[in-house]
């Protein structure tokens, strides 16, 4: 099993490397280079040459890639093109904010989604399950910003319980931070919960259609006992994967939600950089998001290996 985990972790690192190459290719090697994009109308041949040399664009691509990768591994993402600030200093506090928001939503979403998912699998086909089915379908279909604005209308404007803008600044108390981030966290929760609930329900149900569960029913056990004693232990692996997968999804949802609530996180930073075409910042944010995403997916697989009882014992590999 150790070997399996090591293989999976190695594969994760390999994926990250491949992703960094992909991001680098997208931003550097494709036609229309940064220098002419930044200089715009002032792009005289001389100015271009000087600027390219300044950015190191006159060197071959693979030299620049390894230079960039080396810098990134040492926490050096370079400087922003638009305001010349050091990117890592801007990025770190925003990254903390984003993690805070994502963590806050996860704490609310995971227990609700897994709990309700299992319950609707137990009551499959009954009224509660059908209602949950329709509600989650709607929650998945509507865009995040729609949910966000509805929550703002209800809780910030009509009831005035929470602020509509989630302004967070350094030195803010923890309690206040939680209070301010409630609406964005709820928005994320609603979207992610729906996904997680449906996937949890499906993975429990797909186990419910196996022969040994049928056998358990034929023995005359009650439905709730079959679910809790026979189905759940085997569904644990898939459920953990579902949770990790949706936490990875949170990372994406964060981009839109941060923009709805003007929350100072990496998502907002990145979108800002995209509209200013500030390539080093885009690279840095893209890599951060990708790294979190790949790490979570790798962790999901590793945990799935850990909880799967069949993989704990040493046995010859089956194809």
């Amino acid at each position: 099993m150790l070997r399996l985990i090591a293989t999976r972790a190695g594969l994760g690192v390999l994926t990250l490397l491949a992703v960094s190459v992909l991001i680098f290719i997208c931003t550097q090697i494709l036609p229309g280079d940064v220098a002419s994009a930044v200089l715009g109308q002032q792009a005289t041949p001389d100015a271009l040459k000087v600027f390219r040399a300044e950015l190191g664009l006159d060197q071959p691509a693979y030299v620049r890639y390894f230079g960039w990768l080396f810098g990134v591994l040492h926490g050096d993402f370079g400087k922003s093109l638009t305001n010349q600030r050091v990117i890592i200093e801007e990025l770190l506090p925003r990254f903390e904010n984003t993690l805070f928001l994502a963590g806050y939503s996860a704490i609310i979403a995971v227990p609700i989604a897994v709990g309700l998912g299992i319950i609707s699998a137990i009551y499959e086909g009954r009224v509660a399950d059908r209602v949950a089915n329709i509600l989650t379908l709607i929650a998945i279909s509507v865009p995040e910003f729609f949910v966000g604005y509805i929550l703002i209308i209800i809780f910030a404007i009509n009831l005035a319980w929470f602020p509509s803008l989630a302004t967070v600044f350094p030195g803010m108390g923890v309690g206040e931070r939680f209070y301010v981030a409630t609406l964005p966290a709820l928005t994320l929760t609603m979207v992610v919960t729906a996904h997680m609930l449906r996937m949890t329900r499906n993975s429990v149900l797909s186990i419910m259609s196996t022969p040994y569960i049928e056998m358990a029913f034929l023995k005359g056990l009650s439905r709730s006992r079959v679910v809790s004693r026979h189905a759940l232990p085997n569904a644990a692996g898939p459920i953990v994967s579902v949770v990790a997968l949706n936490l990875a999804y949170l990372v994406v949802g964060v981009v839109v939600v941060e923009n709805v609530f003007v929350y100072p996180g990496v998502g907002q930073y990145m979108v800002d950089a995209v509209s200013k075409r500030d390539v080093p910042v885009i690279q840095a944010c893209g890599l951060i998001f990708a790294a979190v995403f790949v790490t979570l997916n790798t962790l999901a697989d590793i945990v799935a290996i850990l909880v799967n009882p069949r993989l704990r014992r040493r046995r010859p590999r089956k194809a």
Partner: protein
Amino acid sequence: MTLFGHRPPVTAWIGLAIVAISLIIAVLGPWVAPYGQSQSVGDTWATPSAQMLLGADQIGRDMLTRLIYGARMTIGIAAATTLLSFFIGISLGFTAAVMGVWVDMALSRLVDVILSIPQLILALIILGVFGSSIPVLIVTIAVLDSTRVFRLSRALGMNLAVLEFVEAARMRGEGLWWIISREILPNAAAPLISEFGLRFCFNFLFVAALSFLGIGVQPPYADWGGMVRENAAAINFGLFAPLYPAFAIATLTVGVNLVVDWLLSIDARPSGSQAEM
């Protein structure tokens, strides 16, 4: 009532109605819109009245008119994207299934890498470098989305490529294109059609999200995601302006999903459990 020999449930009819109405509005756009799309006809965020059924937007343009033009733009882009994505995905997917191990390996690993990071992030990176214009938007989303179509059509193709009739076509010396288009495609059509609905929903939401973030369709064109963004400030005065376009997006996605659910339920083989939603 039956449709193509099947009896759709109520939810499917609702979905079909939503899709049909949206399509009609998108096609007829300029002929049914009461005003011009960039014509300023009222005050900022004017309240709904007989002249302007949904009120006005942030610079006094008629909301209903903008919604109708927006339908054209948003649905048009999403449809173009999905068609292009299916063209790329199906051709490459079937090629990978038919051509053999090396082509398959190369394409599949590339797809693995692209799918290992969120598509929104990759789209942001590409749009940030190229700048946003409608053709760039369509091609970017289509290429990213084609990775999923590739996986599905590759899997379908793999199953079909080993069947006797494909073998027979190979024996009598048919070319790659014949095998893909005349032998494999017709047999993979049913799952691909319901996938088309799902991919359309996804691309539609994707375009809307990018426009909402200000890096999709650029003003002055009306587009549902962009309209939400432009009118976002109204929410602080308790006005519903950004909710109309957001509601339009939500309605159409739910509608398409309802239709797809029905299509999937026709496809699904009858089985003891309802594991497939």
